[in-house]
């Protein structure tokens, strides 16, 4: 078929928006799509999940003054966004005996319970019951982490937020070494 040999102009066309989307036709001719005064870009990032259904709003070019937020607020939210750790707290997770390490984002979890459950699923093992006195009883594994000072610590002793800020990497220990760590003397 002849048209298959044609240069696919549509595919190579430079335009705004995610690949595969069409910019929806303006509701009326009046809609302006000029970039904002403070120089923001028109492209919507590709973070939007591709699993969004058809009725979800299509990414649009920026409309002046929409959403209607005061410029002062816009400028100051950007500022603080820079300092906010938007990127997750990624730490390496090693398991004794496993061929390779994994990486997880601590920010995704609301507390120790969720974290441990995720680790159990990821490495297909069970962690025992935590108690302050005796560490993790009931399995041969103990979750440990390396803190800011380089010390190997048992997961669960300190408040979650403190853990998040001091944890540098996780290590799931196995066997006698684990028992040694988990034993509360």
């Amino acid at each position, binding site marked *: 078929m002849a048209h298959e040999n044609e240069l696919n102009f549509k595919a190579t066309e430079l335009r705004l928006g995610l690949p595969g989307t069409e910019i929806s036709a303006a509701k009326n001719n009046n809609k302006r799509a000029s970039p904002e005064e403070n120089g923001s870009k028109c492209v*919507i*990032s590709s973070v939007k999940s591709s699993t969004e259904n058809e009725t979800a709003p299509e990414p649009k070019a920026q409309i002046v003054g929409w*959403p209607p937020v005061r410029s002062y607020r816009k400028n100051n939210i950007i500022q603080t966004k820079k300092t906010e750790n938007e990127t997750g707290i990624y730490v390496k997770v090693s398991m004794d005996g496993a061929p390779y390490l994994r990486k997880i984002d601590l920010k995704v979890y609301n507390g120790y319970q969720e974290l441990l459950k995720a680790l159990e699923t990821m490495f297909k093992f069970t962690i025992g019951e935590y108690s302050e006195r005796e560490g993790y009883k009931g399995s041969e594994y103990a979750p440990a982490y390396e803190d800011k000072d380089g010390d190997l610590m048992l997961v669960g002793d300190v408040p979650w937020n403190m853990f998040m800020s001091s944890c540098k990497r996780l290590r799931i220990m196995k066997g006698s070494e684990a028992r040694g760590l988990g034993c509360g003397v």
Partner: protein
Amino acid sequence: MCLFQCMMNYFPEEVLDHVFDFLSSHRDRNAVSLVCKSWYSVERFSREKVFIGNCYAVNPERVLARFPRIRSLTLKGKPHFADFNLVPHDWGGHVYPWIEAMAKNGINLEELRLKRMVVSDESLELLAKSFPNFKSLVLVSCEGFTTDGLAAIASNCRYLRELDLQENDVDDRKGQWLSCFPESCTSLVSLNFACLKGEVNMAALERLVARCRNLRSLRLNHAVPLDSLQKILVQAPQLTDLGTGSYVHEPDSETYIKLKNAIQKCTSIRSLSGFLDVHVQCLPAIYPICTNLTSLNLSYAPGIYSNELMKLISHCMKIERLWILDTIGDTGLGVVASTCKELQELRVFPSDLYGVGNAAVTEEGLVAISAGCPKLNSILYFCQQMTNAALITVAKNCPNFIRFRLCTLNPTIPDAVTNLPLDEGFGAIVKSCKGLKRLSVSGLLTDQVFLYIGMYAEHLEMLSIAFAGDSDKGMLYVLNGCKKLKKLEIRDSPFGNVALLADIGKYETMRSLWMSSCEVTYGACKSLAEKMPRLNVEIINEGDQIEASPDARQRVEKMYLYRTLVGPRRDAPDYVWTL
């Protein structure tokens, strides 16, 4: 003539004067001044606080002639849509002529409150030097001044009680303005410099706080670190309103422990804001004061993510006013709904302004709030999506809304479930909320929603419309139906000349009308201006959109009209034409 009227006529003016002293609202005073000549006369000499909603509706000379005993002036300048970059910066709204006139007339000015006005350093200097009893300066969303102007205020206003700077665009000259408060200044009750970007001298700030024993409200800027906050709180445990600066520190440190102790002593704090930069591990320090808070503004704290936010809010049972970011999520709003039974005003601002795709709130959060918070009467809600069903439920749960502003991030998004316009949902709101004074609509909307608004929104005073409606009928429904309408602002909607010209007398009953990217033409605007000499019809003509002698049929990009007693203003820039 009724008996009461007769009796009032026999009262000497001193008695009337004394009675009018009890009238603080300018609306009441305006009403009273219309009763008869004698009441007008007594009232005008007794009025000390004057409110002017549009600085171009009148001029300084007329105001001072009518109210010679004025002590407090409130002025508003630019139209509301200026907040969203729709009005060029030098459009107008200068305060200088007002200050100049008051200085010349020997007015004993004590208070000046400005919103969306251009304030130059020169004006601030003149202000500082002309009024020896000046006590209170409140600037909201203003621009044009630098910290040099603030230095003049600090240096010269010996009895200054209030310096409140809210969301202004200030050029920070890093000139130590705060150090200009003399050692003899002990009168400050309220100091808010949260919007300033530069550093202030910490030692000077700490000393200032220490000597102002009546200080009740203090809002710091980003440059004030946590250890200074701690020292300040030790000096000022009597604070009722606190805005933290940067809230970042090691949670294990001695400073943090000292801060915890200092905060615990601040048992009078009822209003909290700030957290412009925050380490969430330091938040527990404020839990003890959360139980007493009635007002909480975390809308500039994107660093407090959802879980921490929920934990914090679960302590705030007495909150009446809550401003947050949509990072709170629908779940977080559920926590608000179950905790904050005293909630009256809620504002949920968007955290994601550039469509990066962060989670926002949906109709679920709004419904939860409406179900859980029986006292809710004012809402500003930026959301990802909305449904008619949700709005109908909200209308049923909360018939007491005075302000209802809904903003869908996609301005023309339909009902998320049915794909229909949101007409029925907003219709339910206006039908149920008989006291509604302010409404902003968004989402996919046809003329039908305006039919409902015209029919039911009897007390509506301000209406904001964007990307809505199908034809002139929509705008006509509103103009014909909303008898108390004062401010109407419309953008990107297909309303044109027929609607604009149908009832031109209506505009003299309103403060202003804004129409941008609509269908009105130059000819219609000119015709309106010619027929109504007491309206200023301004065309804002940026970028040479209209040539010198434009065609009558040419569409006008931006039109702003307002009633005025003093004709076209003389300070309009080149591209603003008053027809």
